[in-house]
């Protein structure tokens, strides 16, 4: 049995910030991540980030990931377990089961847990959606940006949210032709600046369109054609509007759902909040769930931007450390600053969905209100 003060599950933007904040307060932290390197999805984000200087605005995600991992790796209070997957949480004795480096089973008994497991991609039902050549946008990013492999030659992107727009741009940078970006919604869901970036490359964005079916090449069995059709204002397909696109790749980018298995196991009160991507844990302003000592941060707490994930992580880390008695006198100020920055990021029109979602979720008051 291995002891640690705070276990952080997931080494993406939220987890790294949680670990750094907790260590800054004086706590000993163990980060557990199933990947071979820290950074989570940041390692695939080649675009410069929005936000303010404090959220690393104008710095590319991949560089933010590197910056944070370097800080974590040289911090003597933080231990890192890579290639290690948390496969269970046993609420009776508060033990985490970890498949350590893919080889051995290790038990860890932390005093506090920050769950920063992120989210997984949603998929779409349509005819032949299992053909070779049909990918989630995350897989395409992994192939291209981590392994330097292009997924094909001609792509239909399904989904005009930020991920769909950004991955389309990255595909074009890699000389892969994006034939069209379609979205069932009547408006582009991602930031308009991302949309304008791909529009001026000549990529058409077609709103109120969805995918009807995919068809294989008879000889190879791999994707050859996609059929799309238009939706009316009640989101019903309009027969006769079908268009055939010759593509060898369909990239699905229709949103994310929080990866909450550990929270369910721990017995956290969960709630279905569509605006936050699905089931999420009820929590207070300090990011603590209804199970004392278990905190959430990042996409698992509600699917949002990496910039807010980082601040949520910081908030969770500060509070987890504080609950163990670590406070050099700066806690209250740092906590309030993080809460204020989160509010600023969410206060505009693009934060409305998140605000609606959180209103259904965040219980009032916190255990350590300043």
């Amino acid at each position, binding site marked *: 049995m291995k002891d640690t003060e705070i276990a952080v599950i997931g080494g993406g933007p939220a987890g790294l910030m949680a670990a750094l904040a907790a260590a800054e307060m004086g706590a000993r932290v163990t980060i557990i991540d199933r990947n071979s390197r820290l950074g989570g999805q940041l390692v695939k984000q080649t675009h410069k980030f929005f936000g*303010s200087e404090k959220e690393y605005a*104008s710095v590319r995600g991949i560089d933010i990931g590197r910056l944070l991992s370097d800080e974590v790796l040289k911090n003597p209070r933080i231990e890192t377990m890579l290639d290690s997957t948390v496969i269970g949480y046993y609420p009776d004795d508060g033990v985490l089961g970890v498949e350590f480096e893919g080889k051995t089973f290790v038990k860890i008994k932390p005093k506090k847990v920050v769950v920063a497991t992120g989210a997984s991609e949603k998929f779409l039902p349509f005819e032949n959606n299992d053909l070779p050549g049909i990918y989630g946008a995350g897989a395409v990013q992994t192939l291209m940006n981590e392994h330097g492999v292009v997924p094909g030659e001609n792509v239909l992107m399904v989904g005009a949210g930020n991920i769909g727009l950004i991955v389309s741009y990255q595909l074009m*940078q890699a000389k892969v032709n994006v034939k069209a970006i379609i979205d069932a919604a009547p408006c582009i869901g991602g930031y308009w600046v991302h949309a304008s970036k791909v*529009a001026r490359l000549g990529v058409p964005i077609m709103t109120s369109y969805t995918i009807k079916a995919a068809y294989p090449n008879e000889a190879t069995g791999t994707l050859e054609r996609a059929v799309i059709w238009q939706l009316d204002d009640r989101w019903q397909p309009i027969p006769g509007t079908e268009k055939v696109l010759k593509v060898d790749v369909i990239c699905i980018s229709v949103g994310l759902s929080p990866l909450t298995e550990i929270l369910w196991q721990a017995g956290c009160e969960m709630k279905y909040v569509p605006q936050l991507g699905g089931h999420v844990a009820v929590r207070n302003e300090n990011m603590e769930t209804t199970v004392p000592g278990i905190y959430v941060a990042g996409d698992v707490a509600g699917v949002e931007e990496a910039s807010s994930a980082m601040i949520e992580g910081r908030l969770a880390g500060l509070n987890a450390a504080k609950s163990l008695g670590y406070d050099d006198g700066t806690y209250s100020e740092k906590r309030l600053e993080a809460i204020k920055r989160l509010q600023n990021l969410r206060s*505009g029109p693009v*934060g409305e969905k998140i605000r609606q979602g959180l209103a259904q979720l965040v219980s009032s008051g916190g255990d350590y209100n300043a």
Partner: protein
Amino acid sequence: MLKTCGIPTEEELASRIPPKDRRKKGPVVMIECFQKIPCNPCFTACKRGAIQKFEDINDLPSIDFDKCNGCGLCISKCPGLAIFVIDETYSEDEATVSLPFEFLPLPREGEEVDLLDRSGKKVGRGRVLKVRNGKYEDRTPVITVTVPKGLSMVVRNIRVGGDLR
């Protein structure tokens, strides 16, 4: 329309175009930022105070065009790649547009390239005057290209080496 296809209409653009009088005096910034998102690096990048301080980080940038000298230091700092510098005083029949360009191959200075509009359509040919690609630009090279005078508000992209699609 921006929200359905990512391409601004004339009306949408109108509010972002620098005043005509100012454009006659030399290079000036045009920020094609139409949506209130939480973002302010353009303000941080501007050394002349031409981009006003954001009361709320979700505000659209507001510009004092008389303070802007068209230096272009904001171009590569905009995460949305939405900033351009226009110089309508370049020559009798040509203007220049400076734009962010994150594609390979990069053009060489003096090279002729295709000029594209906001929908990626070719609208002419231009000559690359300058390629800024230093540490400051951080892999968002800034290209200055000549455009026929009437196209200073139209050209927003270039294509190097012809149409590969």
